[in-house]
């Protein structure tokens, strides 16, 4: 047996390091373009971002990113691309917030009912694209993009015309507030026991635990079960998968519907942990940012967790850029350059690894 050589270790860390260097260079140019020092910008961001209060917020922002990224990864692994997560999570969030406020159940059960409604609605919305793909051969990329537009329009319409109530003393529209039984408790008391002090401006959503559980389940199912293998086989080589006995239509349908159901959950963290209702201020774009999170995380459970946290960190810490007169939107450039350079770096390393293996093989054959 061969022992892991230093070159192997180097290879493993080469891609992330290369990507980090390139993205820092690109981002620095963006900061320089606004005639500011990149060093100052990074220092300010780091100092602000690593404050305890900021870090807790990073967790809250990363939670929906992570759940939505898992939804997307389910389809990526199957060789499909669900761009419709944004629409699925909005519809799921709206319906579950609206319907769940109409009944009362014991605490845990009520939360499960909220999940169930959101997943059902998200899954059904994705099922439209799945049906079109399987029965009519419509590309899921196109159909989910179009379904996004429909979903955004539909949620606005239903929300403003039927589901919303006007809160007294404000002009904010919200659905009826969820009863306490349907709210997910904050993790702050738990963190207090672990020695984390209360921070001004908030706690940590309980949905974080759901996201972690989902990540573990995703890893296990994809890597360790027959369903997961067949899903990956369909992505790796759809023809060989079919020849090996995978029912490709069923697999496409399941992957998209499961993805939609998980997407439904991604709309819930803010509602269950903070607003307790669907509001006009519902955070837009989570489903799109999550595509980048999934790509950067290479569709792996751990990788996506790291990239969700990184995106959250950039988003929170970049607010401090305003303090030194840099547009906080600079973080979008940072996210973009990280994503692009890492995708390229990983591909380069992947090809290099194949070449290396071929050489190793030539040696083994010659021996």
């Amino acid at each position, binding site marked *: 047996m061969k022992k892991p050589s230093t070159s192997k270790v180097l290879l493993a860390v080469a891609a992330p390091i290369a990507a980090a260097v390139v993205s820092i260079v690109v981002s620095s140019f963006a900061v320089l373009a606004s005639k500011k020092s990149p060093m100052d910008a990074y220092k300010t961001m780091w100092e602000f971002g690593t404050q305890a209060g900021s870090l807790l917020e990073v967790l809250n922002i990363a939670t929906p990113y992570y759940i939505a990224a898992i939804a997307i990864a389910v389809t990526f692994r199957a060789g499909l691309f669900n761009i419709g997560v944004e629409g699925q999570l909005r519809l799921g969030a709206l319906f579950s917030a609206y319907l769940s406020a109409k009944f009362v159940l014991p605490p845990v059960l009520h939360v499960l009912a909220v999940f169930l409604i959101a997943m059902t609605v998200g899954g059904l919305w994705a099922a439209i694209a799945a049906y079109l793909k399987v029965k009519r051969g419509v590309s899921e990329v196109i159909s989910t993009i179009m379904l996004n537009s429909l979903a955004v329009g539909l949620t606005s319409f239903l929300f403003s015309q039927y589901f919303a109530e006007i809160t007294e003393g404000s002009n904010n529209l919200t659905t009826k507030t969820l009863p306490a039984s349907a709210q997910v408790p904050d993790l702050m008391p738990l963190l207090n026991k672990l020695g984390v002090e209360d921070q001004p401006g908030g706690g940590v959503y309980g949905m974080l635990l759901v996201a972690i559980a989902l990540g573990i389940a995703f890893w296990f199912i994809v890597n360790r079960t027959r369903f997961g293998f067949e899903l990956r086989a369909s992505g*790796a080589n759809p023809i060989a998968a079919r020849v*090996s006995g995978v*029912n490709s239509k069923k697999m496409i349908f399941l992957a998209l519907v499961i993805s939609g159901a998980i997407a439904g959950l991604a709309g819930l963290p803010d509602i269950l942990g903070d607003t307790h209702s669907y509001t006009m201020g519902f955070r837009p774009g989570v489903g799109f940012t999550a595509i980048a999170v999934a790509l950067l995380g290479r569709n792996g459970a751990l990788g996506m967790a790291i990239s969700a946290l990184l995106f959250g960190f950039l988003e929170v810490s970049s607010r401090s850029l305003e303090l030194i007169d840099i547009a906080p939107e600079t973080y979008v450039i940072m996210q973009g350059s990280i994503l692009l350079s890492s995708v390229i770096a990983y591909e380069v390393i992947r090809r290099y690894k*194949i070449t290396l293996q071929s050489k190793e093989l030539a040696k083994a054959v010659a021996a």
Partner: protein
Amino acid sequence: MKVETGTVHALVGENGAGKSTVMKILYGMQRPDGGEILVNGQAVNFKNPNDAIDASIGMVHQHFMLADNFTVLENIILGAEPKHGITIDFAAARKKVAEMSAAYGLDVDPDVLVEELGVGQRQRVEILKVLYRGARILIFDEPTAVLVPQEVDDLFNALKGLRAEGMAIIFISHKLDEVLRVADDVTVVRAGSTVAQVKSKDVTARELAELMVGSELPQPTTHGDTRRPEVTLSLKDVSVPTKSGSRDLISHISFDLQAGEVIGIAGVEGNGQAELVEAIMGLREYTGQIEFKGKNIDNYSVAHRHDAGIGLIPEDRQRQALMMNSPLWENRILGHQRSKPVMRGFILDKKATIADTRVIMDEFDVRAPGPHTLATALSGGNQQKFIVGREMSKAPALLVASHPTRGVDEKGMAIVLISADLEELIGMSDRLLVMLRGAITAELNPQKTTPEQLGSAMTGAQ
């Protein structure tokens, strides 16, 4: 290895010996680790196939790279069109192609669509395409694999014409009788190294074979009759219609296959063999009935057929049988993901799978560092051995094998064997069925059939 102008130089070796790698390096598709290549005495360094083409090296691929809905002329000039301002100068192209056809004896009508051509003619178009780009060194990768004997004769005549014109020809093959017929010099490779370079007139096929394998050949095992009375596979009136319903891809195929019997399906590629395989595996809808071990399996899914004990070695292994960017141990699972040893219930047993992958690699001599090697790193021959090993590991009652060449060792199982290698077909089969335009047109006794007779039957000449 040294190739002289005006000669045909054959490169022979077993599957996985390194023939394809040499070819890829010569054509700029892969970079050598060391050593040098000289063309007309000049050292060259190819970064990609364009460099090789510039150095007047041309390749005739085993699988034709032609656009079916273009004419012969359009295919030949594609990518190297003579310009007339911004338009294509078809007149000049036509003239040049006509000259080349005449000069090298490669006769083909320039205005016919490629989709209307037979395999032999398509190959001629490929050769013209390469010549049109000014190649003086021609590499032929297993050029006879898809041809019937008569077409092989035509090809060899054309090769002699090219040789007379001062071209250098590199002929890659593992069919030794053909090599001896056409080549002047022979280089034998084994396990990645040149083991011999000989004049073809100085050696016999048996000597070449020994050089290739590296030891005394075992006596060719005469295929004993292992047939048992029970019928393993029975097709009754099986047809596969086209989507438009205009014509059957295969029509009214019926045959019984006994346990332990090998039935050889002969036919020129594209005459329904692939569709027959897909019907048996349940990958294509068909009419008629298929029975396996006495049970009707028409309603069985593909997975169900695998699990019932039908093994498959498909025609295009990279496309149909492997996940190229996955390690071998994951490829071991493909087609077996519903049973032991790779599964414990619904959970994947990674340890057992890796162990079993090692066993297959040992038993079938798959040359690779280990179960974690990616399938894409393996040579075609080793990929092949791996797939054969994978399918044999479940001890199937029936094996459907397309172009398996060697490695399939019949242990009393029934085999449907589809091959373009007529000698392999005759040597291994108990019974030969000839397919032409989707129908079975002849049944032959392999013991009384020569490759020439079989070739004629395949073209419908008899």
